């Protein structure tokens, strides 16, 4: 693992002061000790809060919209067959067209999700992860015992 953590603090995380620092500058309380300390200071980090909120907001809305679109399609087909049986072209009815539209919605949502994650979430997560690993690398120099089998 990373042994020279000060070098990485200086290069990859610009807002981190190069001084010897246990927790994060934004953490409200003095950071607790133990292996989870790095993660908890990350938890209070404003960048983590915003990226976590962005991830949840997108995931929830995208799921509600795509699953909701399908379930409302099922309900419409069951309880409003008159609407769904309108002919559009040839044998294609509105209901059949909506069935095809489900596939389009799925493809679209998947594409938007991947794009959202690449653009808005992944870069921040990578930066925060480097910070956690730096912190844990620092901790590992202390006798950490059997950290990997802690649970």
């Amino acid at each position, binding site marked *: 693992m990373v042994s020279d953590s000060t070098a990485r603090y200086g290069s990859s995380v610009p807002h981190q002061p190069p001084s010897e620092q246990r927790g994060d500058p934004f953490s409200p309380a003095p950071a607790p000790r133990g292996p989870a300390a790095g*993660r908890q200071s990350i938890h209070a980090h404003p960048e983590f809060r915003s990226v976590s909120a962005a991830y949840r907001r997108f995931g929830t809305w995208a799921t509600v919209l795509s699953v909701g679109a*399908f379930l409302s399609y099922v309900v419409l087909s069951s309880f409003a*067959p008159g609407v769904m049986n309108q002919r559009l072209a040839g044998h294609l009815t509105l209901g059949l067209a909506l069935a095809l539209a489900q596939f389009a919605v799925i493809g679209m949502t998947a594409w938007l999700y991947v794009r959202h994650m690449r653009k808005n979430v992944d870069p921040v997560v990578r930066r925060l992860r480097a910070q956690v690993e730096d912190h844990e690398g620092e901790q590992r120099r202390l006798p950490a015992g059997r950290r990997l089998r802690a649970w």
Partner: protein
Amino acid sequence: MTVSASVADAFGLRLTFVLFLSVVVVTLFTALLTAPQRDEIGEFYLGNRDMSPLRNGLAMCGDYLSAATLLGSTGLVALTGYDGLLYLCGTVVAWMMVLLLVAEPLRNSGRFTLGDTLARRLPGRQRPVRLALAVCTLTVCALYLVAQLVGSIALLTQFVGEPGPTTRTMTVIIIGSIVTIYAAIGGMPGATFIQVVKAVMLVAGVTLVAVMVLNRFDWNVDALLSSATAGSGLGDAYLEPGLRYGAGPISKLDFLSLQLAIVLGLAALPHVMMRLLAPRRTRVLRTSVVWAVGLVGFVCLMAAVLGLGATAVVGRETIEGIDHKGDAAVLLLAGELGGEVLTAIVSALAFVTLLAVAAGLTLAAASSLAHDLYGEVVRKGKAKETEELGVARIAALFMGVLGMLFALLAWGTNTATLAFLAFAIAASAILPTIVYSLFWRGFTARGALLSLYGGLLASVLLVLFSPVVSSTPNSIYPDADFAWFPLQNPGIVSIPAGFLLGWLGSLLGPPQEETVYEDFEVRALIGADQR
């Protein structure tokens, strides 16, 4: 119908057997070769963690699409047109929940099983929670496994007519033993190999037949639709909703209930979830799931073409004459388009499909038994890796034998009923626990226990008191009548019940330590590429 109504003759049967056997031999050898050599438990549970996204996606697709999709869904399209197509859509939409909400945080916070994720989230009372989760996992796996094995008998019926007791027993024992060998010896690497082989065969097979169907109609979809309408003998009603689930408000509600269970249940099926934990890097997992969505979507579109094609080419009456559920549709279509050879290929494909899904289920159940139940509940985390590995192999054997016994006892059961119950349990017991532990700060161990046991009990009891078990001629006990719950699918009641119980239990129970959730939240989002 009599024996003469079956879809293949002696030559076709022999060809099917040879094809099936060659796939089995090749995959069995590979399972032995790729079996975990070192006694590493991680390799047995997760397999090769550095596979490419395409191969992961193929394996996920293979785990998910069972013979029920290949034969059952296409049959449903062939017999009921619009309602069948609606059902196929649900099969694909189910992946959205996995992709958008569950996959990445679950992998980031997990290790070998879902129980590990819960133990990290609820460390105070991890043993009772693991126990409850193991109970639910085993129930889901056992139901789905029995459905697959019973399905093998149903498939055999297509060839030789109603099989005698000896043939029946032999089929279940042979298929069950092969499945057990894959899971017990090959572990995840062996299971992955057969999933990938099966998924490639499935995609190639349905594409081939769909191309032949479309070619017959000069690539004119409207001509296919009009021929299907004509072949159904039902006129325009064939392409309108209500043929299958339109008998009345109860039946419509039943369909909604079924769709709800399918769309939400997938994200909580143990054998699919186990695949989500395998990739080492989050990025690879995401691309894998996108591949899986694409592949499943493609297969379902092709299945729609097959179902419509079967009605257009063979005719609805013939299909229904051989099997009233329509399971013979694709086989009849293949026979009409490509003669005995194509029928043999498709039927071998159906057997391999069934085998692969059963292997995945056995493995998921064995992981849960060995890791959650034995390793953490019985031995309290003190078991050595070699010891746990041995238990995992024995557990796979145990699951295989249990599945065979149940399948022989319940060979007449409708496979769809068993599979739908498994989906309902997954959606109402396991899913609330996953969603709450990933996204709700206030979730506690008591909430987890209540939603796991409560969701399980609610779904099982509702089915017990539904027309599935009593009061109609198709029930298990047609003469008795204790069906006070009118729907065949409990999802619409049991899923909200599971979520409600989880919420109530968390309000009542002692609160969690704040720092635990904070640590978990960071891990679920940021994770770490695992070494």
